[in-house]
């Protein structure tokens, strides 16, 4: 009932662990696998080890959260060691990598291509890390084309491009990625950036001052962007933004997503959020006489 196929990859359910949460190492991923995720994305890897920003890296507000970790990660070399053997996983594992320019992306993709990842995701859309994503000018049609074209040559694995729904031309960027050879669009990275001020001290909470906004706050903007993308794209869309319940995932599918990612929801419902959402989805499908979750994709357009 929940099984889907995405870029030729079979998933037992459409809920994917999003990049950046519980994805530092295999331990983390196993935890999300046990929690019922249909696929697992590793935290974005850079060429070199990165220690990221000072804490606080997270700031909460009543409608979601901000984060600015600064792409802390142990670097490519360590990642290649860590993820060399993926035989402990029963669900597909997706690589993610970040860089400042096309040539570094090519190095990363070439290396990650050698491992058993089911797909490789390129986040060209982080709104709050200097030298990466939007702050490296990757949120344009031109940069997207250049990076995706270059990476496309280095791997036959499905290549997913993660965009940012904040951008008024998000659809054009997704189309550029599609044209350059992307196999799916992941939408969206965190929005903003935003800022939360601790008024007692009159200072921003985050050490980096600003951070990407995630959680329920951003869901309607993501739903609308998925709806817009679905009208124009031929390749599948993976939706993320504020999914906390099975009903939210269903909303994303109806807007046009083929699969749904979850990040922030884990802070609220724990790593078992995947199982919980799957149960909620199954129950809803039964109650509403759907046989398969795939019947939902894009139905809000009818």
């Amino acid at each position, binding site marked *: 009932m929940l099984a889907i196929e995405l870029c030729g990859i079979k998933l037992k359910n459409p809920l994917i662990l999003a990049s950046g949460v519980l994805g530092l190492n295999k331990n983390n991923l196993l935890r999300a696998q046990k929690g019922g995720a249909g696929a697992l994305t590793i935290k974005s890897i850079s060429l070199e080890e990165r220690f990221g920003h*000072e804490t606080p890296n997270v700031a909460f507000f009543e409608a979601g959260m901000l984060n600015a970790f600064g792409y802390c990660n142990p670097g490519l070399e360590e990642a290649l060691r860590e993820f060399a053997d993926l035989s402990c996983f029963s669900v597909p594992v997706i690589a993610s990598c970040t860089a400042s320019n096309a040539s570094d992306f090519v190095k990363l993709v070439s290396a990650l291509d050698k491992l058993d990842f089911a797909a490789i995701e390129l986040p060209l859309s982080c709104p709050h890390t200097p030298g990466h994503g939007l702050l490296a000018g990757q949120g344009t049609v031109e940069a997207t084309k250049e990076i995706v074209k270059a990476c496309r040559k280095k791997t036959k694995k499905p290549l997913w491009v993660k965009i940012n729904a904040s951008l008024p031309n998000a659809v054009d960027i997704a189309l550029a990625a599609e044209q350059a050879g992307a196999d799916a669009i992941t939408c969206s990275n965190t929005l903003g950036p935003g800022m939360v001020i601790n008024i007692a001290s009159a200072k921003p909470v985050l050490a980096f001052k600003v951070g990407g906004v995630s959680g329920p706050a951003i869901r309607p903007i993501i739903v609308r962007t998925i709806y817009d993308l679905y009208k124009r794209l031929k390749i599948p869309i993976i939706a993320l933004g504020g999914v906390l319940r099975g009903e939210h995932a269903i909303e994303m599918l109806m807007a046009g997503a083929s699969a749904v990612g979850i990040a922030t929801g884990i802070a609220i419902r724990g790593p078992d959020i995947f199982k919980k959402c799957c149960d909620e989805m199954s129950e809803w499908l039964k109650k509403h006489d759907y046989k398969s979750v795939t019947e939902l994709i894009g139905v809000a357009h009818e």
Partner: protein
Amino acid sequence: MNEFAKHMIKTGRITKIVEEAPNIKTFELSIAMHAEPGQFVMAFLPQVGERPFALTQAGKKIAITVKKRGPFTEKLFSLKEGSFLGIRGPYGKGFSLQNVGKACLVAAGIGIAALIRLAEELAKEGASVTLIFACKSANEIIFKERLEKVASLHIATEDGSAGFKGDCIELLEKVLKKQSYDKLYCCGPEAMMVSVLKLCEKYAIDAEFAVERYMKCAVGLCGHCCLDEWLVCTDGPVFSKEQLLASKEFGRIYYSKSGKRMRFGGD
């Protein structure tokens, strides 16, 4: 309160600062919070950082007891009464206190911060509490008065300046030989906890340990605090003897600020 709002930073003023030892201070804050012994909070200093600490007092006013170690704790030590401090939490799961008639607590150094409220709660529940407290030297023994009220206190110092001279493992084994306990609770440096864990196995005592790992988020997202597949921030910081015996990483592996796998004591 909503599920996100509860993670927002609460700010309070420092209402009292107690110098417990040359390098240890207790900060009492005008923030009300209930927490189980063993749970922790994230303390926030704007433009300095956010760090995990146990609560050494809860209820109408909370307190943290801090050992000076690096940039955050140094800044904290420079604050005066009346200064603001931010707190979010409580986080994690605490110690379990059920059905404990005779408890043995083992603390080393600042590890006492995680056990002081446990000792008091256990005593309140009617348990008899034995506490083994190991320090480098006599001037690091804190909370003595509070502890003596609720526990039979056994002190060990490395330099012999108070109590038993030697490490707490020796002292603990002596105690365990003499007397049986329903449960042991432990907090201290990981190498010491590994030794205590071994003794618990040897003497077949049920036990719980408060473990520390590098923490960035405290809400189970970043993954930095992992211990095997567990997350210390949400599954811990308290782990059972069985969990730690099954662990491949306890006493061996932690993850650095970058998320790199590190070995205790260096590579």
